[in-house]
């Protein structure tokens, strides 16, 4: 088949600037050809100076990360046939969030130093007893499975390439390094959890993520780095590390949704309606009074992008009941033994008003069907009979 590509070729000039040029190619390739095979065909038969990385061509070495039509892909994992059938001419460019060395080759040194900064190896205390028989640690399949996804990471850089937060804050640790950090936090054999969590609880750590989920979507290996970041966030809560604004925001969001909070005089925030307007000032604390923040709030309100403060007194967020019930179930299921570490504050009772509304909405069986989990305090059919 005839495959067509347009490639952004980039050549550094001696003066430090870069010459950029979008070059079209058309080349014969076999039916099963991948994007990488197509680049090879170009390099071997058209222009030997085309620069890109490659090695295993089976999606495990992580060399051939690049962008196709603006999205990060592994070139060896993209089949050309469907593109050719659709008559498409994809545009190939280097990964984002990294300096370009030449053509499709990027400088990944920042990527590697961020990985390096997570202490990416198992750390064990001298006091931890070694397995008595001198053999392996006994790890149940379920326990091992906690780090399965993160263990799949091939460090190709596709997630970092697409990371919106890193675009805004180049110092953000980024999805790959955070997934690597979780790989050890989630490992029963590791004893450095606190230090690891401290290292990700910084301005450029866990809470710097904007949750755009591009990393999950573009990861070619199913690592789901954003999920790893969420797990780190949860672990921070488990260890009482909740001082960061990000953590406070999450906490207040939850409290507001649950209708439960500890500040005095916060009826508006904690009435169980999820009070969006109040979230920001409570997250920021006294800082909210700074003119920049205050003015931003006013501007948002004037453009209709923030509801008035009294809004939540009258309006309950749609679907909140379900969220609340899920939360309740999670609080029971997700005990300290499952996640490792103690909860800072034990899970509380749901306010009676919410419990009532829930009972009105779902039967025990429906809840079971919706969530796959049994309610403890509701009579189930088995326990009833």
């Amino acid at each position: 088949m005839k495959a067509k590509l347009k490639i952004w070729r980039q050549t550094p000039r001696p003066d430090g600037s870069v010459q950029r040029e979008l070059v079209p190619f058309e080349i014969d390739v076999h039916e099963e050809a991948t994007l990488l095979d197509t680049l090879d065909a170009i390099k071997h038969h058209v222009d030997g100076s085309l620069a890109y990385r490659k090695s295993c061509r089976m999606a495990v070495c992580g060399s051939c990360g690049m962008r196709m039509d603006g999205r990060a892909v592994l070139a060896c994992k993209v089949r050309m046939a469907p593109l050719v059938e659709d008559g498409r001419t994809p545009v190939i460019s280097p990964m984002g969030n990294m300096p370009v060395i030449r053509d499709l080759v990027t400088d990944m040194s920042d990527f590697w130093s961020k990985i390096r900064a997570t202490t990416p190896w198992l750390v064990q205390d001298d006091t931890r007893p070694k397995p008595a028989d001198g053999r392996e640690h006994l790890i149940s399949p379920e326990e091992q499975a906690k780090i399965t996804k993160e263990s799949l990471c091939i460090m190709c850089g596709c997630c970092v390439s697409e990371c919106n937060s890193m675009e805004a804050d180049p110092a953000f640790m980024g999805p790959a390094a955070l997934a690597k950090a979780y790989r050890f936090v989630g490992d029963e054999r590791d004893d450095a959890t606190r230090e690891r969590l401290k290292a990700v609880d910084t301005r450029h750590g866990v809470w710097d993520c904007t949750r755009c989920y591009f990393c999950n979507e573009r990861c070619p290996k199913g690592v789901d780095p954003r999920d790893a970041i969420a797990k780190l966030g949860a672990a921070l809560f488990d260890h009482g590390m909740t001082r960061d604004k990000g953590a406070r925001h999450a906490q207040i969001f939850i409290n507001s949704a649950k209708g439960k909070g500890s500040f005095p005089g916060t009826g508006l925030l904690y009435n169980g309606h999820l009070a969006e307007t109040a979230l920001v000032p409570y997250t920021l604390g006294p800082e909210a009074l700074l003119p920049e923040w205050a003015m931003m709030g006013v501007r948002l309100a004037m453009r209709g992008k923030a509801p008035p403060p009294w809004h939540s007194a009258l309006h309950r967020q749609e679907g909140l009941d379900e969220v609340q019930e899920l939360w309740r179930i999670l609080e029971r299921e997700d005990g300290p033994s499952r996640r490792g570490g103690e909860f800072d504050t034990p899970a509380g009772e749901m306010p009676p008003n919410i419990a009532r509304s829930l009972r009105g909405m779902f039967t025990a069986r429906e809840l079971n069907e919706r969530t796959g989990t049994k309610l403890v305090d509701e009579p189930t059919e088995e326990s009833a009979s």
Partner: protein
Amino acid sequence: MVTQHDVVIVGAGLAGMRAAIEAARGGVDVAVVSKLHPVRSHSGSAEGGINVALGNVADDDPDIHTFDTIKGSDYLADQDAAEIMCHEAIEDIIELEHMGCYFSRLPNGRIAQRPFGAAGSPRTAFAADITGHVLLHVMYEQLLKHEVKVYEEYFAVDLAMDGETCTGVVCWDLVNGGVKAVAARSTVLATGGMGRMFHGTTNAYACTGDGMAMAFRAGAPLKDMEMMQFHPTTLKSNGVLITEGCRGEGGYLRNSEGERFMAKYAPNALELASRDVVSRSEWTEIHEGRGVDGCVLLDLTHLGADHINRALPGSRELALDHAGVDAIDDPIPVRPGAHYQMGGVATDVWGRTPIEGLYAAGEVACVSVHGANRLGGNSLLETVVYGRRTGAKAAEEAAERRPVEATRTAAGIDMVRQRVNRLLATESGPRSDELREALATTMYDNLGVFRDEAGMTQAVKDIAELRARYDEGVVVQDKGDVFNSDLTYAIEVGYLLEMADTLAQCGVFRKESRGAHSRTDFVERDDENWLCHTIVRRTPEDPEFTIETAPVTITKHQPKVRTY
């Protein structure tokens, strides 16, 4: 530019990194040179697992592992080397687990083990079908922990030699351009295999026999080069490997008539017979007209979606990406493909070559533990066990050697610079890939699963012609310094051609059938005349090869007829 270290390791796959870690533990200053970033190494593509007689699933014993290895090798393995590997395996794998390696687990928490071809017990420890990947990454973690200096994307072009002694390695800096030398008292080659000389290989683009060729040109003997293993289940389009784990998990091989043909060739072991046996059976089926478009069918459909998704997700993905087949619904067309070079730089059981200061470990080396046929799961093990032993020895002996003065690498730097300049200056002639394609064709046609005198002699002739064309000059279109992969491909093709030449000539030389070397004109194994290694060598000055034999070390196991 020259930098100096006590030990330099060329290659950052499993063998190289394991050697580096052990050398670092030995308290010497270690550096690693690699043309790829360490985690890009081809060790990461190993899927099935790593053999170790842990006995977690069924009774097992390192002695049985040793016997299986020797029998699998068709009695060409050096038995002392195999004993060491199988016995030290247990401690080494446990250490990997203690380093934090991810393993699939049994319900009781122990490392899971699965059956693999030609093994007397379910002995292959694994992590789903990404075993090489998790091992490679845990090794990289340890490399970082030990703060080993890595020269990333440094392409080693030649060894630096001071008379008869190896004094380091001369490299081309791929990212910035320029010839740079790393001087060292001990140099360890860990550059992996050379499958790229064949069409339809499971090997990565980077597996071009560089280390073997560098050692060979410096005068180090290569051992058993004719022994290229063919893996029975590779995809037709590009040789991508579908792991033996698929058969270990219960997959069937069928011909065009739907028959499980292995029953004819290996009535007991069936699909789990040793690799050479399965590859030959497939070849026979295909050539007797019972193939499907040049392939046989690897059928997993009866395992069910759950089992496939849990135990073999990577294989399913590869078949989807490279053959357009979903293994849950349809059988995967597969055929034998060049997979693993059992031969390589001859070493003793401490990774030492006859050249002072030069060591080798991993696929580049031939200790030999695999003999004429490697068992699946034994080469990852070899990288770990012999990587460790070689790293330890290289460090220990480096401490005893005098430091290498930087000027001792000057001759090497000059030679490499001349070679690079010559390549860049050539204006007319073939492109390197044209020569590689022609080489891969003659190798696949004449040195595949079955061989004979006529075919192999043809290959020797073809290779001689290709080598002559290469020497006249290949064109490198990229004339720049920055990331000039056109230049490094051209150098790699030179290595491939020379190593292919050794393979073909040793093939002609060995007049029997043993393991992977299966001749239709000498169908029997001939222990009387050929229970011996082939040793090929040249001198730095004279490119002509000499081939001779060397005895096999036999300790406990006298050769027997090999059936499965």
